[in-house]
């Protein structure tokens, strides 16, 4: 019988870690982050001079990559055994809800002018890159907490 997928296969530093599996599962997430970061850098200068349709395409490109990432993640989770599927789904629930909470909380503080803004720099973390960085941290935290009771 085929071996089921294991969450440790994408956990850097674990014995079961496989760079190929990590790329297969998270490749689109990496692509989304790169596109988002690049367009954030280019938006104030180069992109603003482009036609609206091109600007819109650049703005939504990371979200298309995120949808493809969700698809590959779902396929990978489907290949897990029931215990790990349950742990993964719990960790993802923790990660998404905690990220949503932090991003909204931070945004409210930013809008209220709590953070000092010098030279027009923004403190807003509601970007694809920031959100996925937070989500990754919360995922590992959530997985660690959820898997503790089954060790």
């Amino acid at each position, binding site marked *: 019988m085929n071996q089921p997928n*294991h969450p440790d296969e994408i956990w850097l530093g674990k014995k079961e870690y496989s760079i190929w599996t990590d790329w297969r599962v998270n490749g689109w997430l990496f692509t989304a982050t790169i596109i988002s970061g690049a367009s954030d850098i280019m938006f104030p200068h180069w992109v603003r001079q482009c036609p609206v349709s091109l600007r819109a395409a650049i703005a939504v490109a990371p979200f298309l990559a995120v949808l493809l990432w969700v698809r590959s993640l779902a396929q990978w989770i489907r290949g897990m055994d029931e215990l790990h599927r349950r742990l993964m789904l719990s960790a993802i629930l923790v990660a998404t809800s905690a990220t949503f909470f932090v991003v909204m909380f931070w945004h409210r503080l930013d809008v209220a002018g709590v953070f000092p803004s010098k030279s027009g720099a923004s403190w807003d973390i509601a970007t694809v890159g920031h959100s996925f960085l937070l989500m990754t941290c919360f995922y590992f935290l959530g997985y660690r907490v959820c898997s503790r009771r089954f060790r």
Partner: protein
Amino acid sequence: MKNCLRELRADKEWSQGDLAQKLGVSRQTINAIETEKYDPSLPLALKIGRLFKRSVEDIFEER
């Protein structure tokens, strides 16, 4: 739930890894079931029963 999976596995002289492979799950899942930290789903419980030629009630019982 209480279960006698460890005893059944020992009778067959299988390791947790062997049993995991036969059932198509991870070794951690077998360990979690044996230590009664995780209750398997009905399909997995039936699979275990079929593998050991026992009924689910023979292997698993409520605390």
